């Protein structure tokens, strides 16, 4: 048994790309081992921005031997009437490089075949790996590649070294013009270039002597522990999110946390600006006090120990210079009349073929008008239309031109500073939220409404322009916009049917009536698909629960969620089984028949009269419950009718020979079916057991 040590030394890979490449590499190795039938033990794959390491234990030096059968043509094709070999058989032998005498008859389920048996496997693992590794590396894909040497082989960054040690011997591998060698490089700054590696033990020892913390988990716990130390020392909280942790993890091979402070006068800038400059510009973390207020401290992660405080002091200077710039933008922008900037939006193109931002905000105001009506917030109309007209003005400010991630936020802050009404500035401030489904819960109604308008305009615009999205392609973020609309509706509990909004938004970009209908349909399908995804993947509703509520042709997003919630409760309380059985039975009868008219006068038997009376008595109450979105109560009231319906089925022959009687009975059942279907299609629930969530 031998082990394989592979290390690819690379110049700095962009931090946020590293873990994806590591996962690809691991998958490619496993696939290749399987393809080459190389048995193996544990596979370890770890990465930093400068190296990707794969260590595979317990590889036999030869792959297992076995007898292999190669089927040739069927016997009736392989031999002619006289039992002589045909061209098909000769070709087979030629291809397999065997003689006709090697061919044997093989019995299969499909009949008799000719073919050969031969010894297979027993291959040299070293040779297979030597051939396999360049193929593995060639299989890696990257968002952006480069070339740098005569090999012209695209890769993410130049490759410095390839170490392939099998059974402690170097394998001769070449990729992208780089030949394998056992010289591994250490830390960029702290190590004296290369060290030699002749075993996995050498490798691990060499790395630790040369200031490389190889394993992600170790780097991560070092960073977290050192941040905790600083939090205790400063009695504060460091604002670390996953993306920044990931960035630090993959931009340092020897991470050391440092802290520093800046002149407190810059705390006079809005917190949003300070935070954006620290995180996005300088890769430093803001520090807040116990009350959650920003302090003049920051935390960062260096790739070397900072005993002399050089790193900390350097970063202090840099962050203050950045704040100096921020201060300049903040002051110069506020000298402008914010509302006057709107006219200049006539010069700013929103998207090719979709007009300017000036035209966009005019459209947004119309969409907002519809939205305040549909959500019964007419009182906000004037303020939210003002917000809509002016929500893109900040694109012309120096701050946003320099830092596009602050768009919206800056518009809000500039108006707040100018003393504008809170509803107006807050709507502009928050109208780019949410960035994703996992964002924190949205609170501001005005911002939510403006955001829905903006997103719907984006979606209608791109779809109107003919942009198609697929599972892998969504260059304009149409899906993200639809997800955002769904999240806003859910967070703010808006009882909004999107259909009229979609129509109005689509109308702005339609070339003709047919085009309008097509785009309207496409957008509805987009939202249906996103909602389904939201319920299944985000809220973890079981697929059949989601199917049961998705059917009805409505764009009332929140209703579908409430219905799913009710169905899950019905599943959990055991009420779903009789409901599902009832709905299936009703659908069976109703789906085969055309729509029938009901007349009380045609009721003949006792059981159908009782059912009709009970239904009449319950219907208005249940309709009312449905209107009030109390889907659980509505369902259980329907369920209460079940004994009477069952009795009806027991005693009454629906398919009576008398056609008017038959049609009348079907009509009664159709009414009940419609009522039930207004809640959900219970017949689609397949697993009648508790746990409507996955």
């Amino acid at each position, binding site marked *: 048994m031998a082990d394989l040590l592979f290390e690819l030394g690379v110049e700095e890979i962009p931090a946020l790309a590293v873990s994806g490449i590591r996962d690809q590499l691991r998958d490619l190795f496993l696939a290749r081992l399987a393809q080459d039938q190389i048995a193996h033990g544990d596979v370890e794959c770890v990465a930093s921005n400068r190296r990707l390491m794969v260590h595979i234990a317990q590889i036999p030096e030869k792959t297992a031997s076995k007898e292999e059968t190669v089927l040739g043509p069927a016997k009736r094709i392989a031999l002619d009437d006289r039992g002589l070999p045909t061209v098909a058989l000769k070709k087979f032998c030629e291809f397999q490089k065997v003689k006709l005498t090697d061919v044997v008859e093989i019995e299969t389920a499909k009949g008799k075949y000719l073919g050969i048996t031969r010894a297979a496997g027993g291959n040299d693992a070293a040779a297979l790996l030597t051939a396999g590794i360049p193929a593995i590396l060639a299989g890696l894909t990257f968002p*952006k590649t480069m070339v740098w040497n005569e090999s012209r082989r695209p890769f993410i*960054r*130049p490759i410095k070294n390839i170490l392939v040690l099998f059974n402690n011997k170097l394998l001769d591998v070449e990729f992208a013009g780089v030949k394998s060698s056992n010289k591994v490089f250490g830390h*960029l700054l702290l190590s004296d270039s290369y060290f030699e590696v002749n075993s996995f033990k050498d490798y691990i020892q060499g790395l630790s002597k040369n200031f490389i913390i190889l394993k992600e988990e170790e780097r991560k716990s070092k960073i977290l522990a050192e941040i905790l130390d600083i939090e205790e020392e400063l009695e504060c909280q460091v604002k670390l999110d996953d993306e920044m942790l990931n960035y630090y993890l993959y931009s340092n091979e020897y991470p050391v946390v440092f802290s520093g402070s800046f002149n407190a006068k810059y705390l006079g800038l809005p917190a949003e600006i300070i935070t954006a400059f620290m995180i996005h510009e300088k890769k430093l973390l803001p520090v807040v006090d116990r009350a959650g207020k920003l302090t003049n401290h920051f935390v960062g992660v260096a790739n070397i120990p900072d005993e*002399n405080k050089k*790193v900390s002091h*350097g970063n202090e200077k840099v962050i203050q210079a950045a704040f100096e710039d921020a201060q300049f933008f903040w002051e110069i922008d506020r000298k402008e009349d914010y509302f006057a900037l709107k006219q200049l939006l006539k010069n700013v193109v929103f998207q090719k073929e979709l007009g300017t931002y000036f035209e966009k905000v005019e459209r947004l105001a119309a969409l907002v008008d519809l939205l305040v009506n549909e959500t019964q917030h007419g009182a906000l109309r004037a303020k939210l239309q003002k917000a809509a007209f002016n929500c893109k003005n900040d694109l012309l400010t120096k701050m946003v031109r320099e830092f596009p991630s602050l768009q919206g936020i800056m518009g809000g802050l500039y108006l707040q500073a100018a003393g504008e009404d809170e509803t107006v500035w807050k709507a502009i401030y928050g109208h780019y939220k949410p960035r994703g489904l996992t964002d924190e819960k949205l609170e501001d109604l005005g911002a939510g409404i403006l955001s829905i308008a903006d997103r719907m305009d984006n979606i209608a615009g791109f779809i109107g322009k003919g942009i198609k999205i697929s599972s892998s392609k969504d260059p304009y973020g149409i899906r993200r916009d639809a997800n955002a609309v769904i999240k806003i509706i859910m967070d703010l509990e808006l009882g909004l049917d999107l259909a009229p909004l979609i129509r109005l938004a689509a109308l702005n970009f339609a070339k003709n009536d047919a085009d309008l209908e097509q785009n309207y349909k496409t957008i509805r399908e987009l939202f249906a698909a996103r909602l389904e995804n939201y319920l299944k993947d985000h809220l973890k509703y079981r697929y059949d629960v989601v199917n049961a509520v998705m059917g009805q042709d409505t764009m009332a997003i929140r209703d579908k969620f409430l219905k799913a919630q009710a169905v899950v409760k019905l599943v959990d309380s055991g009420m779903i089984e009789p409901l599902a059985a009832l709905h299936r039975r009703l659908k069976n009868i109703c789906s085969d028949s055309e729509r029938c008219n009901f007349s009380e006068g045609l009721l003949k038997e006792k059981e159908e009269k009782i059912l009709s009376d009970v239904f009449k008595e319950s219907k208005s109450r249940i309709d009312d419950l449905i209107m009030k979105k109390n889907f659980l109560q509505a369902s259980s009231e329907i369920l209460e009718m079940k004994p009477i319906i069952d009795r009806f089925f027991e005693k009454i022959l629906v398919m009576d020979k008398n056609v008017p009687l038959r049609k009348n009975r079907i009509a009664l059942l159709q009414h009940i079916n419609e009522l039930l279907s207004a809640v959900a299609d219970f017949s689609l629930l397949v697993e009648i057991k508790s746990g409507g969530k996955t």
Partner: protein
Amino acid sequence: MSVQNVILKLQEFWAERGCYIASGYDSEVGAGTMTPDTFFRVLGKKPWQVAYWQPARRPDDGRYGQNPNRVQKHNQFQVILKPVPVDGQLLFLDSLIYLGVDIRIHDIKFDDDNWASPSLGAWGVGWQVMCDGLEITQFTYFQQAGGIELNPNSLEITYGVERLAMFLDGKNNLYELDWGNKVSYAHLKLEEERQFSIYNFELADIDMLRGLFVQYQKEAERLLDHNLFLPAYDYVLKCSHTFNILDARKAISVAERTALMGIMRNLAARIAQKYVMQTEGENHG
């Protein structure tokens, strides 16, 4: 360390490593990359090693002399190594050591930052080099220039001279820098920054500049018809600087920006093709 010593030391360092020490170009450029010693010489097959000090104008970066870290005209030190050396990063670190940077106590990072100049049809892959959080250098493997795929590729190292001097001298404000022999940066540049900021942001004549852009463009096209790609390129540089002033004046809309960039990119591409044709013959793309 003074500003002039940073320049002198870098010239020494790269001269010893085989670079020809050029002068910066005598026309306004936004970056050392636009200098003919880079723009033309990265094209084609011939090896090329050059290093030069290039003042770079970015009208929009002006701060009226009031920002300690930003100016509308700064100084770059540009190195082109063609083909790409195998140990470019280490060579660069050596140059920092030569300047007196102790790389064991300063956090030097190669932070993902790809470079592109849409108006020159040029782009590359690489990093901004950060030293204790300060961007001191742009380190780029050129992939394309003038719309032409480069083969061999070049390594471009662009040092920010003021940034390096501030770092080496421990200064927080670039106007406190010593340019050399006690001549202060403020004495040399403060008034220039103030006047050019007022000009670029407030007084530049928009109509005149728009007119000039068109004239420069026409002149470049006319010269190209005569196969005079070197003077034609000068007029593209003039277009570029004119564009930058108009941009600082907020006189360019997004749509117009795309159009004007397209004009410059097309000119740069035609110029690059003529250069390759003349110096490399028909057998090169």
